[in-house]
């Protein structure tokens, strides 16, 4: 994680909370949920995420924790899911499916929503793998994609300053060799030539 990540996140969260209290209380039908986001390959992606979300009517950004790659959203399930019956609860998986679909369309599938990781932060292992000083946004995202969807990987981040890919993962499900193999398959040069 880069220092700027740590500093920016709490400020952003606080601002979002302030915005919420200033502009009204959620209606009775509205619901607030937190999800894991796949797609935060590097800090500049926050802006992409916000832009994509801004195009989705009826879905409000409540909080964004880049360090944990989690987002908290407020929405009206009845408005969100077509066929939902008034006054009756909508299945959480249907809500997630619809939110993911809409966010995917708005971001050309560069962001995906999944359920939050059940593994506590304290139990996650971390590995930093040199991938070179990647000054190309697309390549940083490409490196990230190589590992982001591996089973057990909770989040990852590529730094153009340190040339490292940092991966947080469940050590019971994966390990560094598997990460390196995935990078090799994606033709990521490690170590850089």
């Amino acid at each position, binding site marked *: 994680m880069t220092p700027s990540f740590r500093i920016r996140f709490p400020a952003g969260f606080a601002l979002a909370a302030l915005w919420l209290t200033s502009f009204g209380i959620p209606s009775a039908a509205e619901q607030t949920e937190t999800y894991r986001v796949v797609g935060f390959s590097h800090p500049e992606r926050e802006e992409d995420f916000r832009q994509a979300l801004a195009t989705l009517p009826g879905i409000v950004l409540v909080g964004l924790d880049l360090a944990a790659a989690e987002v908290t959203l407020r929405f009206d399930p009845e408005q969100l899911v077509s066929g939902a019956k008034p006054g009756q609860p909508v299945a959480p998986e249907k809500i997630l499916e619809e939110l993911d679909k809409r966010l995917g369309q708005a971001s050309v599938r560069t962001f995906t929503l999944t359920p939050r990781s059940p593994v506590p932060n304290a139990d996650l292992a971390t590995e930093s793998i040199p991938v070179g000083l990647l000054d190309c946004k697309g*390549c940083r995202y490409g490196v990230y994609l190589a590992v982001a969807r591996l089973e057990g990987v909770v989040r990852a981040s590529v730094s153009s300053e340190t040339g490292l890919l940092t991966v947080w993962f469940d050590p019971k499900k994966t390990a560094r060799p598997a990460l390196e193999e995935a990078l090799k398959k994606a033709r990521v040069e490690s170590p850089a030539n």
Partner: protein
Amino acid sequence: MSNRRKYARSAPGSIVLMLMLMLLFGLPVPIPAAPEPLASFLDRHCFECHDDTTKKGGLDLTAGWPDPATPDGFTRWLKIHDRVESGEMPPPKSKNRPDPAETAPFLAALARDLTAAEAARLDAANRTGLRRLTRAEYENTVRDLFDLPGLAVQNGLPADGSAHGFDKNSDALDISHVNLARYVEAADRTLDLAIATQPEPPTRQTVRLSLAGNYEPNIMLMQGDAVLLRDRAHDPVFPPAGKHAHINQGAHEQLGIFKRGSSVGVFRHEDESWNAYFRKFAALYPGRYRVRASLWSLWWEKGKILPARGVEAARLSVVQFNENGRGGQHPSYVLGYYDAPSLEPRVHEMEVWLNQKETIGFNTASLAPVVLYRVGTWGQVDRTMGFTGPCIVSDWLDIEGPLHVVWPPNSHRLLFGELPIREFRPADQPGVTPPRRRPLKQEIVSTDNKPEPLVGIWTVHSAAPDADLRQLLGTFLPRAFRRPVAAGVVEEYVALAKSRLEAGDSFEAAMRYACRAALCSPDFLYHVEPAGSLDGSGVAARLSYFLWNSMPDGELTALAAEDRLRDPTVRRAQVERLLKDPKAQRFIEDFLGQWLKLRAIAANDPDKKLYPEFSPYLQDSMVAETRAYFRELIERDLGAAYLVKSDFAMLNEKLAVHYGIPGVSGPAIRRVDLPPGSPRGGFLTQAALLKITANGTTTSPVPRGAFVMERLLGQKPEPPPPNVPAVEPDVQGTTTIRELLDKHRADAACAGCHAKIDPPGFALESFDVIGGQRDRYRALEKGDPAPRGSIDPKIGISFKLGPPVDASGQLPDGRTFVGIAEFQDHLSAEPQRLLANLARQFTIYATGRDLSFADRAALRDIVERAEARGGGIRTLIHEVVQSDLFLTR
């Protein structure tokens, strides 16, 4: 009186009976002896070599006088006439050469007999046979008739044959059920485009396209064969690959990195594996579009953007997608080669006709045609950031259109006049079948442009169908048939349309039915000319099909109606007008395509090892040179000597470098004064002709010599005797073609003809298969290392320098030359011969028939009149048009 009749009358019945018996029993039939004064001349000057014992060249003239009325007899005596007339026979070294006083009566008598024999054979009133439109004429005619200048129907029609050097002769223009089926298809396609199916024109839109974001360029960007640029610097979002290769193209595309409107700098020339097309657009509405492109160039020095080495050339072409675009595409035609100046973007603007599914393609034409760049791929040190070389940049390309000056378009007005277009409501027209409409869909998957929604079926409305049909067809048919049409003929087409109305068709469908019939009728498909002298419409059509390769326009038609085209002054003015019109370019392209065989320019690809510098850009420049040079000859009315020798050339930078002429920059063809001693300029030494007459690997004096003789000098060589093996070239570098030919010419049967054919070919040995000048042959195995010369440094050279070229020779008349310059001097000293041949070519092309023996006097007259007026090429065209040959069928 024909010889046949002469013999029939003089032969007593008993002789005839005897001959019949001899034929019956297979005995040799004696051929009558030649009449006087032919017999005595032959006896004195010819029998010495051509009797039954010597039979030189296989010819025994003592065997009798073959009847000139027979094809074989005519051919033999014509040959004898021409050999004696040219002085070739009896041979100059002969002790018994006749003096002119003796030759003249011989030739006159022979000419009399040949003319008489020919007159009996040919229909004097209908020398030009009934001939259909060629493919090119057909396409140009429907384009001009309907004002659809980019309508493409030619490729759907069967290929035309060729006779006497051109496809316009009735001998070459056969017709079959295949033609007819294709004419129906072509007529439907034309009418589909011509008829407006909506009340308002499609909205004119402008789309800005970037090369980035398209399938193939994205791959090149990822590989590093191209870079993204912004404000003439690296695009920071997608920096050039250096230490690291770019990875995961899909990730970049998902993030929209290639869709930000950045400029694209390309290092690599197109080849079999990659072409750059603007795939985000494919025309939906056929029509005129305005295309603007911003292009420039730079020199890439390991990531630094420096001034380019000069003005680079970018090629833009029209490309048509197949099916839904995934199945591929093919370039329809090259729009042109455009300046890409150093570091300064230049915006080029052009109006283009786009058919459905067409878009624009881009190529870095002036870059080396090699695939050695791949600067960004794996394993290359520092990839793009380590590369040094030229780069051509496409900032953007705008396509605006469709451009409609009027609505409904002229094509629709030609068919339906001012009838209103209204929505078809079945309730208003019970029992009438609505016109068929195919919903417009964007079938090309990669595109962003979509069709506009159209509600309802819109079609022309006629309140008085009978009267409208009569009036509309009465206007359409004379235009389509290129001459006045009798009222009865119009009524036949009206009846056709009415039969469809009675069957329940809409007015549009009925009119379309009649027009389709007209477009498939002989009146449209054939040049219908009266016997004997042409009428006004016939002259108008000959003029326009000669100089525009298409139908007459309004002015010609009006002059024909007033019968003013018989007036020589009016014809002169019309020739000037037609030649100044842009449509005259069709004549230049069609005529040169056949006379100088420019259509065969791509018949072979030069060997890549022997001629690695060859590129499509060079080939297109070659063709452009020949066309521009011919146009220059016509515009400036230059003399026939310019066909073979010139003090200027029409060049662009590519050709100038190829020819070793300094000081020419950029892709535009322009007039360039040649340095003293340069052999370039005339057709004889133009790269296009030198390529057409070579086989891609080696040159041979034989085909080149035959080409010069037949096409420039008007002397068609005899075909080779049967069972003579071809001279196989040696590319190993051991034996020269001259050495091989010397062996060939040792055979007496071959020597006679080769003495005439080979000399022009020997002179042209100074030029290789792509028209480069040479002192030594290129070879693949044996030889000395070759210097690079003007070959691009990015191109690898593996060929060697083989034996030296010997371009010397001797003409049949004994004149010698040591190389191309002296040979050009010899040819240019005979402008009348060159002019006479060109007059012959123009006349055959314009009249659609070969010239007979009896036409020689008329042809001589054309040439003499042209010479008396300065002997220029444009003057010659005028004199052809003024001649009886042109004005008579």
